[in-house]
């Protein structure tokens, strides 16, 4: 039969996504499953470094619990300090996965198939990281369940008219739906890995993740029936979640925050940073595991075009905010924006503007979009810029209505810095385990782009 296979192993052809070498259904299995073979020295070294940083973050959190929330740099009036910055940053990172897996699925953008699993994993781990910060910020994270409405003898309920409570609903819904979407999508691929696993423990883990999948016509029918609805539900959800997050700020009558542009501006910013992070993850993965023929330069270029598109929306929002402040009637608003660009934290503003609005303009040039080292560095800058975007919004509290409060004394404490570093370690810990445990690329969906083997008529790729 190997002759038959060779005869029908045609290269993948779909628009411009022609990989350099032929991919067959078997070679695709082998290439993707190679990732979950025994980890090498580099993986262990990265994991060790990750655990050291995570330990540092845990020590900082322990200090914060023992000595109180004051050990973070919270200072009146900047009481939210960097925890809200980190929360919004990680929720933003989490947005790309659903965009790639759900929105592009509904729009039938086939390039998503090669990259969406990594993006979805990033989404789930991003929300798991984001969810830490409201809990850490309470100072007593073990009372986190107070955020959730539940019947109690004092008949106390959270304030359902507060944007902070909306956030609880939005973020928990997002975590639940994106986790379901992620786990459901993995089922057929976990079955592929299960059928080829040799170690009994791996086989057991993969059997659990595959739910006993056999690929029968009944299973495929209900799987894709449900998948479509997951995508249809996740699409409005992803738009609503970051809108709700933006309303944490926009519902408050604080200069620089009380703006209707916040929701679309935050959603675009979230997708911007999320896609940049996906690129940052995909470039080393495709290089390390030699998967350049599966995640091609064309795929990376399409993602970088998304970065460019969302960058222009974000840059437009920055400019519109200034225009509205200048054109509008509020002198407090005008003062706030002038202060942002020239005041105490102006360096944060200019880092944000440079990284998010100026540097991504280089993506207009094709050689930049297809140069992986340059794209990697550029996306790192985008993520730095997007963290600073939230920093700039948060530090606006230091310039409130009362001049008596303009004594700027917010400084990030080492506790906050260590917890921020620990959050990255927490995120990458999940990711490192994921790439070694489950198929990081959707084998089934990539197979659908291959021409199906036909005896009687010329093979054509699936729609």
């Amino acid at each position, binding site marked *: 039969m190997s002759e038959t296979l060779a005869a029908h192993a045609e290269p993948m052809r779909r628009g411009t996504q022609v990989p350099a070498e032929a991919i067959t259904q078997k070679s695709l299995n082998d290439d993707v499953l190679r990732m979950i073979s025994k980890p090498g020295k580099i993986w262990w070294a990265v994991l060790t470094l990750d655990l050291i940083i995570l330990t540092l973050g845990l020590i900082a959190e322990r200090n914060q619990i023992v000595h109180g929330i004051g050990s973070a740099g919270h200072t009146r009036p900047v009481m939210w300090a960097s925890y809200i910055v980190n929360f919004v940053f990680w929720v933003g990172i989490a947005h790309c996965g659903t965009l790639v897996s759900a929105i592009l699925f509904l729009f039938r953008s086939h390039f998503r198939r090669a990259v969406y699993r990594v993006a979805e994993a990033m989404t789930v781990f991003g929300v798991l990281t984001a969810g830490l910060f409201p809990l850490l910020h309470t100072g007593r994270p073990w009372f986190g369940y107070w955020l959730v409405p539940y019947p109690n003898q004092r008949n106390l309920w959270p304030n359902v008219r507060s944007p902070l409570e909306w956030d609880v609903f939005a973020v928990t819904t997002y975590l639940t739906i994106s986790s379901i979407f992620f786990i459901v999508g993995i089922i057929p691929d976990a079955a592929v890995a299960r059928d080829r696993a040799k170690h009994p423990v791996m086989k057991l883990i993969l059997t659990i993740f595959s739910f006993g999948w056999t690929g029968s016509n009944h299973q495929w029918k209900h799987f894709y*029936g449900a998948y479509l609805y997951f995508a249809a539900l996740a699409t409005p959800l992803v738009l609503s979640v970051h809108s709700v997050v933006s309303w944490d700020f926009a519902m408050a009558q604080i200069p620089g925050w009380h703006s209707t542009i916040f929701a679309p501006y935050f959603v675009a910013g979230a997708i911007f940073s999320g896609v940049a992070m996906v690129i940052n993850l995909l470039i080393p993965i495709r290089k390390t595991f030699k998967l350049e023929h599966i995640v091609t330069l064309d795929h990376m270029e399409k993602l970088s075009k998304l970065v460019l598109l969302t960058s222009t929306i974000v840059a437009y929002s920055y400019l519109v905010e200034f225009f509205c402040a200048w054109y509008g009637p509020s002198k407090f608003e005008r003062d706030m924006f002038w202060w942002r660009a020239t005041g105490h934290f102006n360096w944060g503003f200019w880092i944000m503007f440079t990284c998010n609005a100026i540097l991504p303009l280089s993506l207009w040039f094709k050689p930049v979009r297809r140069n992986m080292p340059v794209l990697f560095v550029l996306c790192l800058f985008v993520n730095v810029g997007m963290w600073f975007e939230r920093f700039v919004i948060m530090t606006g509290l230091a310039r409130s209505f009362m001049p008596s409060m303009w004594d700027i004394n917010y400084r990030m404490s080492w506790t906050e810095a260590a917890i921020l570093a620990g959050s990255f370690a927490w995120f990458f810990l999940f990711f490192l385990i994921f790439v070694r445990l489950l198929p990081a690329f959707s084998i089934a969906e990539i197979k659908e782009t291959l021409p199906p083997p036909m005896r009687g008529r010329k093979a054509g790729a699936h729609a």
Partner: protein
Amino acid sequence: MKPLYDLIEKLLKGPPAKYRGVMGIYYFVDDAAGAVRVLRQMGHKQMSVFSPVPHHDIERALEQGPSLVRWVTAVGGFLGATGGFALCFYSVTSYPLVVGGKELISLPPFVVLGYESMILCAGISNLLGMLALARLPQVKTKAPYDPRFTEDRIGIWVPCTGDEAEKVKETLRGHGAEEVHVHA
């Protein structure tokens, strides 16, 4: 660790299953679709087709309707939205606390919670609906399973016995099956 590994392997293998029917294994999609069409004409409507990816040719030959999971999702969404709004109404009226002089029952903020609850319950019911309809998690397979079905082969399983099995075997062979296994 060996006894543990042996135990896991034994657990995964499960008790020996008895199947009655014929399994045909195909490489070419059009061959498999042709076999499905003929077998359906012969009256075998209860067959199962295993494949690494869904193929439109085979779906058409099987004349499968759309999945019913959408109704489960719709009911879940409706209940979620109702529950979300009900929670808001109940929580503000059971402990009336006026904040900022605003109405206790303020619909615009309730929409956010009602909407998120709708999506949450619709998503969960979508998952449960899919698992129930696709009979997942599947501990025991209803047909002899071959790991090649997750690689590049298509399996057609027709439950039948006796003379019927012989006819099915011939039909599968006649439509280009690489292998045909009769389980009696």
